[in-house]
């Protein structure tokens, strides 16, 4: 080690004039860089791209279609039905997991690596770091959803075909309209996906443990699926975060109904706001003692 601190007057003058907080954009760039450097996030996006291709190819090769699932009856002979079949499966099991892998880890990994003290002793506030992480986790969830949807729809159309789609009311939907409806159905995943991301962020902040941050929202989703399947809970069902994942059904009926979609947006918004507000307060008032 051989040199000394930069004590040139011009350097100090420049520093005095320009020193200040790192902005949200800088924190965002830092969090994005970190995410891009992680093997896990890249593998997840690659999985979102390749898994639908494999699923579509395997299901389309089955001699007997999965008749007991929504649109399963037509999945082997209609590409749009295949894309909706995959959507039904992904919304129940996959999307909460995909978003939780990043969101559930993004705060807890700082505890795991002991790096809170590294970043919080720079010129960035906890608030800005918090919002940068939130935006990156939300961004990743949305990118994963877009990749999954695009891969599913494109592969289904190419492998199975673009025949007219039979809707939930028995109506026939022409291919062009069917494509728009399928894309819209995938787009309805955004509100609950955002809400699950926020729940995962809360688990990550609160537990300080990546495993809990990732598994927590997934287990919560499974419990909600089970509760949602019980009878006599009509008053509770709209409050469940898994219910908005089924709101797309109304788009495929004739006439269309969007009530569940609006209800799902409200539910997702409430879950998101409560989760984020709680996570923010927990982080803001936390003593950083580890690492």
């Amino acid at each position, binding site marked *: 080690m051989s*040199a*000394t601190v930069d004590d040139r007057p011009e350097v100090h003058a420049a520093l005095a004039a320009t020193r200040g907080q790192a902005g949200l954009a800088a924190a965002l760039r830092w969090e994005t*860089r970190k995410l891009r450097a992680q093997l896990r996030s890249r593998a997840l996006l690659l999985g979102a791209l390749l898994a639908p291709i494999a699923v579509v190819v395997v299901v389309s090769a089955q001699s007997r279609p999965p008749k007991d699932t929504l649109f399963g009856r037509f999945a082997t002979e209609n590409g749009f039905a295949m894309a909706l079949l995959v959507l039904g499966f992904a919304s129940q099991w996959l999307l909460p997991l995909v978003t939780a892998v990043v969101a559930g880890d993004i705060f807890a990994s700082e505890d795991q*690596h002991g*790096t809170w003290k*590294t970043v919080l002793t720079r*010129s960035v506030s906890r608030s800005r770091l918090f919002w940068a992480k939130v935006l990156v986790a939300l961004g990743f969830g949305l990118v994963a959803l877009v990749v999954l949807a695009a891969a599913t729809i494109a592969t289904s159309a190419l492998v199975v075909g673009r025949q007219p789609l039979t809707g939930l009311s028995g109506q026939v939907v022409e291919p062009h309209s069917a494509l728009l409806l399928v894309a819209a159905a995938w787009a309805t995943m955004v509100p609950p996906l955002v809400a699950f991301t926020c729940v995962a962020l809360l688990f990550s902040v609160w537990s300080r443990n990546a495993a809990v941050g990732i598994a927590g929202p997934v287990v919560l989703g499974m419990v909600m699926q089970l509760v949602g399947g019980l009878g006599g809970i009509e008053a509770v069902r709209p409050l469940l975060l898994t219910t908005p994942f089924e709101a797309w059904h109304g788009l495929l009926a004739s006439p269309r109904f969007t009530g569940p979609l609006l209800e799902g947006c409200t539910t997702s918004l409430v879950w998101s706001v409560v989760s984020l507000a709680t996570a923010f307060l927990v982080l803001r008032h936390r003593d950083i003692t580890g690492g």
Partner: protein
Amino acid sequence: MSAGAAAVEVVGVTKTYAGLVAVDDVSMRVAPGEVYGILGPNGAGKTTLLRMLFGLIRPDSGEIRVFDRTWADDDVRTLDGVAGFIESPKFYPYLTGRQNLEGLRLLDGTGLPDRVEEVLDIVDLTGREDHKVGGYSYGMRQRLGVAASLLRSPRLLVLDEPANGLDPGGIRDMRALVKRLAAGGLTVLLSSHHMDEVEEICDNVTIMRRGSVAFHGTIADLRTMAPDPGHLLRTGDDAKAVVVGRLRHPDIVVEPSPDGGLVATGSERGLAAYVADLVHAEIPLLAFTPTRTPLEALFFMLTDAEADPPSRPVVAGACR
């Protein structure tokens, strides 16, 4: 920063965790350009105090001013011109050393010059900067921590146990670096539980014990308070050696050591005369080694966990 403002001013700071007082009404002042040591055994409250300085934890009461700024009024701007690390520096293992530094530079705000290459050179990490930090040795991470601190071109460098975990060569290099940085006019606040480290580097020192201040003052003041040096004696006839000491050298204390042999405590002149008498009495002298330096002895006296803490800190002289 107002004229004459301290680099760090701690006033009556207290922090309690679940009923345990980690820092108890601590006050201290670090002047600009000073190398200040916070000394104490593990659990004395040094790291908690530094964490409060960095805003990582909040004091229950009291105030910490850094270049006349406080967390309550200035939030993260309190750290303008401040850099350092708490305990061992931590980095993202899946990023390279350079990527870590470049990322931290982003979080330092605008206007700082790009000194990544320069600081890597200062800490001798050139050539390893593109390796992932996960593969770095402890000493390399410690040096990367110093590099990350220097990246901020600080006026105040805060180092918490900087030599911890380093091999003797690393300790030597780290101390030399701190001395060079201090010689360049940097204010250094350094915590340690090694008396020799603080004695070698610091101008002023605060000794902490169980969260409280046990001593404030200069290293020179500390030296004047230090007890006589103790030496471990191994002789061919310890019983006879004790008798010689008691009969002929009342100015020194000779008593059996719990680890075997004898411990002789007294002035250097008294000890020299005692050893000469042992030789004269034909008692074989097998070993004569210092037990601990006087400052170490004083440190243990001030921080001994068995003893009751002093009701008020020993203050010897004013800080610069």
